[in-house]
């Protein structure tokens, strides 16, 4: 376990408040216990405390979707979520999607369809898509675009991202036993 990062402050009261909340999360299948300042976002916990830097910090205020992760299977913006409010939850990040060298179908489809340029938004896009598949609401191209509106790609790879999603949706409809291929 990585030692908790302590913020330096001149304010004595603030010092007392820092690093006093215990949080237990199951991150990518591993139980993780940390003592953190209560106002630590899930995003900072992942990146600064656990070095899970696959989840990206873009706008840091809920507009871009780069920090999208799955909490108990539901996609949320990690930058807007205080980690202690998710105590006991299962968190899945981009690092937790593949099974060893076996990529998740969405990761494979992204490579097949060249669904990125700079790649900065990609981990958030992929986690968001895994959430989207689980929700089961996306039936048409229009649904896909609407339900992915929270993930912005500044390079503008949208056409290929949508194509990758549709590949996975088509494949999933042929393999009813789940998202992950054997």
């Amino acid at each position, binding site marked *: 376990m990585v030692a908790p990062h302590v*913020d330096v402050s001149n304010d004595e009261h603030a010092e007392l408040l820092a690093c006093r909340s215990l949080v237990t999360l199951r991150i990518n299948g591993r139980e993780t216990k940390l003592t953190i300042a209560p106002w630590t976002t899930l995003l900072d916990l992942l990146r600064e405390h656990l070095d899970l830097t696959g989840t990206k910090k873009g706008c840091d205020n*809920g507009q871009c979707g780069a920090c999208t992760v799955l909490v108990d299977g539901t996609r949320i913006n990690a930058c807007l979520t205080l980690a202690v409010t998710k105590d006991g939850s299962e968190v899945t990040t981009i690092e937790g999607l593949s099974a060893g060298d076996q990529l998740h179908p969405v990761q494979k489809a992204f490579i097949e369809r060249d669904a990125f340029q700079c790649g900065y938004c990609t981990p958030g896009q992929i986690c968001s898509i895994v959430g989207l598949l689980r929700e089961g609401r996306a039936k048409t191209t229009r649904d896909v675009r609407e339900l992915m509106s*929270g993930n912005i790609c500044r390079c503008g790879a949208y056409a290929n991202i949508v194509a990758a999603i549709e590949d996975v949706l088509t494949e999933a409809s042929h393999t009813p036993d789940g998202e992950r291929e054997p």
Partner: protein
Amino acid sequence: MRAHVASYDLVQPGSLREVLTLLAREPGVYRPLAGGTDVMVVYAGGKLAHTKFVDVHGLRELRGIVVTDDAVTLGALTTYTDVQAEPTLGREFPMMGQAASETGGWAIQNRGTLGGNIANASPAADSPPALLAYDASVELTSTRGARWVSYATYHTGYKTTVRAEDELVTRVRIPRIAPGAQGSRVHMFRKVGPRKAQAISKVSFAACVDVDGTRITSARVALGGVAPVVLRVVATEGALVGADVTTLDVAAIGATLSREVTPIDDIRSTARYRRRVAENLFVELTRKLKAHVGLGSQAR
């Protein structure tokens, strides 16, 4: 830049009773934090003045939607995703789902709550105009007890409400009407922002109008972004009720609406643009009413 993390405190009582006890013991000291989709944005901008928060997001007592014969009652922690998934709301109160679907992206809709939207009291929020148009009530609970207030009287000024410092928004109630009891119903929700998704509205508009034949029997029209509070335009409603849709004086009633709104210039838009959009949305409502009546008479 983001505010200093160690300056902020969050306490997490396990139950509603404990939260209410804390709010009663130190009124105004702890501010409730639910989905965080408003508070965290202010925090990220380094502008969150309040430093002590109480986590209410885990309170089971504030979750769930209950449908009875006379109302749909939503727990304060109902998310925008929950609103869109509820079939009775979809059938009878479609503007609730429309407003929810236009609030941020999907990840925001999974976190943001109806109670938080109400308590945050932004005049630009998306759900409040729909709640006003559906004549909703809000339950405020403290250790002193619970009380229901009409949502139309909830907001008292810019970001001020009738909620006392020891009270928590706990439920929202939308009254149902018996099918066919008031003729037929026209719903119109429109959000006007800089782009279609992921934007805060410049103006929002929600109208729920009951029509019997061609006569308007009831009208509730509410707007966001055009006043210090989400606003019901009661004089406009008064001019609509009793009028015949086929002979509606659109210009005169539109002028009434224009007098009722008091938009301002700010970072998102100008007063002039907002006033014009509000007027145009009213014209759109009248067209919708005329089309509705026309189709109704054909069906007969």
